[in-house]
């Protein structure tokens, strides 16, 4: 995510990283420094040069970008540091242990010490530094004087810590390269898509239900629902798992959905829905998936976009509150209703069976559907709408979903009134921890009273038999 605003001096567009809000940025054209306004337009950050497809530029350019990108990374920085450390160590030994090292190299070469040049000695101290730094430690030469040993000890200890740092940097560099070398998805293709983050057996079931839903609709070329799967499963396994879902356009993105770079690759800010499930990919069969990362992933998504509808599936009910706070729209708890179903089998036999039947998507018998309110019945009463569905489709209207509209207080106030009053309102609300905008949310109205007024915001929850649905 990036921010864009106009330079106050020359009005040229300045694009900066999202994290730069509130800091100073320099205009490339006129060089003027200006504060990045917190209200700057949010734009999608350009992918880093490594992630750009090579076809968009000459190969030479791509290589140049790649080299520059590598130079910028910590890998190069730490490698340069390593070389510097080895050189400093060599120089220290050269100055403090000259005679010792000159004698040693004379012995190695079978020459008299008087024939040994300063270069021979320096190369020998360099050899010692490398042997020490790499922890190989041949022992063919070692410092003899107290001062030499003292510096030797410092060099050994610092090289030990340096080696730890370097191996960490190399590992993260390799991970980064692996991530960037994945296919970059076509930004023009992926809009209003669904992301399924994580992999477990239920994902296949979700895809099956989606496929069944799609098979009831006429085929539209290029109109198949776009689905991106994010997980660490081997590509061939995913390919096998999804090959039968020919009514869905499925793309696999390898990576962990808690990583912002992966979410950006999945073009999450253009997605319509994102389902997060406990991720079994990349785990041994006996290891349980870590559900605790799901709230973190929700945070990561919400830092990128507020537009996507997030549905999280968890089995640990303690995470529910965290997910709500992080900005998850819907939470599905495994087995949440099991105690009710079991009890109802005893108390109200028949109810669980009925719930099971009407809750199944694409079942043969009756099913629940969400239907738009017929325009003629807007502002009418529940009784009228109920009769409409009963008489025309023999369908049973159970209730409504009501889309409570979102509201942004700052937009609502606009530029009206005294700017000081507006500023005080926003400051005081923010200080009290009240967010200045409320998102859209869905509410349910089940079997309301007959005179309940329906509006254009109501959608009808109707129990239809498949036979009636066809005629509708």
């Amino acid at each position, binding site marked *: 995510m990036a921010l864009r605003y106009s330079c106050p001096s020359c009005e040229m567009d300045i694009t900066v990283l999202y994290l730069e809000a509130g800091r100073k940025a320099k205009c490339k054209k006129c060089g003027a420094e200006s504060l990045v306004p917190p209200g700057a337009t949010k734009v999608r950050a350009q992918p880093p040069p490594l992630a750009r497809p090579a076809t968009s530029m000459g190969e030479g350019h791509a290589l140049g970008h790649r080299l520059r990108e590598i130079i910028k990374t910590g890998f190069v920085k730490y490698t340069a540091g390593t070389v510097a450390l080895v050189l400093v160590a060599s120089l220290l030994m050269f100055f403090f242990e000259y005679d010792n090292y000159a004698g040693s190299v004379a012995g190695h070469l079978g020459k008299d010490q008087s024939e040994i040049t300063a270069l021979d000695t320096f190369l020998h101290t360099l050899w010692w530094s490398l042997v020490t730094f790499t922890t190989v430690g041949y022992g063919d030469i070692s410092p003899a004087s107290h001062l030499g040993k003292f510096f030797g000890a410092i060099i050994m200890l610092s090289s030990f810590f340096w080696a730890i740092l370097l191996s960490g940097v190399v590992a993260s560099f390799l991970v980064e390269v692996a991530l960037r070398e994945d296919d970059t998805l076509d930004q023009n293709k992926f809009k209003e898509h669904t992301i399924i983050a994580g992999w477990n057996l239920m994902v296949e079931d979700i895809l099956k239900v989606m496929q069944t839903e799609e098979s009831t609709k006429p085929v539209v070329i290029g109109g198949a629902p776009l689905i991106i799967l994010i997980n660490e499963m081997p590509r061939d396994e995913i390919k096998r798992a999804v090959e039968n879902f020919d009514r869905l356009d499925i793309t696999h993105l390898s990576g962990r959905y808690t990583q912002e770079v992966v979410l950006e690759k999945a073009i999450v800010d253009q997605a319509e829905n994102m389902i997060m499930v406990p991720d079994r990919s990349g785990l041994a069969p006996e290891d349980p998936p870590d559900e605790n990362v799901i709230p973190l992933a929700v945070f990561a998504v919400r830092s990128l976009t507020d537009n996507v509808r997030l549905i999280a599936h968890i089995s640990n009910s303690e995470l529910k509150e965290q997910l709500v706070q992080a900005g998850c729209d819907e939470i599905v708890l495994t087995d949440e209703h099991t105690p009710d179903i079991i009890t109802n089998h005893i108390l109200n036999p028949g109810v669980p069976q009925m719930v099971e039947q009407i809750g199944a998507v694409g079942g043969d018998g009756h099913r629940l559907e969400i239907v738009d309110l017929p325009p003629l019945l807007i502002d009418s009463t529940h009784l009228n709408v109920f009769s409409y569905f009963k008489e025309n489709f023999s369908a049973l209207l159970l209730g409504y979903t009501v889309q409570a509209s979102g*509201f942004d*207080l700052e937009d*609502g*106030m606009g530029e*009206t*009134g*005294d700017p*000081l*009053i*507006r500023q*005080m*309102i926003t400051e*005081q*609300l923010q*200080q*009290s921890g*009240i*967010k200045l905008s*409320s998102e859209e949310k869905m509410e349910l109205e089940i079997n309301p009273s007959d005179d309940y007024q329906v509006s254009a915001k109501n959608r009808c929850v109707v129990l239809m038999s498949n036979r009636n649905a066809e005629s509708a």
Partner: protein
Amino acid sequence: MKATAEQIKKVNFFSLLTDQQCANIAEMVEIVECAADEKLLTEGEFGDKMVLVFRGQVEVTKDFTIRSKDGFEVSQKAIIRLETTDPEPASGPKTEATVPIVRSPAFGLGEFSLVLDQAIRTAHTVATTPVQYGVLTLKDFKQITDKDPAIAGPVYFEVAKNAVNSLAKASEDIKNLTQAFFFALLRG
């Protein structure tokens, strides 16, 4: 020292008057000087004097009850600064402006005093530079308009225009505050 007709004419409320009418008003207005930081008007007080600023800069502030770390407190917030341009203030302002500065040749404050003898001051006004100003009381103005009723029309037209603009803004403020109030009730 009395004000001159030219000085009176520079104040927007009297800009539609003839030179003679301005001279009649000027006769009633004594010019006084005050130093920076001196308070010209106090919010909440009642008065029957309109202040005519001929030279200098003033800051208009209002009291607001706001929530702070230590509970609720009354805080003075600057709204605007007014500055004369003809002539400009004798020296720069004592403090840097944090609000917009509106400049005009000369300006009047507390114009409602020309309508009511106990008009409430709706804001504090403090001099931010040395200020030369005159005071026109309702009693003096009535005396002038009794002699020359033609003065009243153009002056009250300007006062009414200001009042209407303030009312429109106040109405928008009430709308914003009501909106914020219900929003806070729902979100709080």
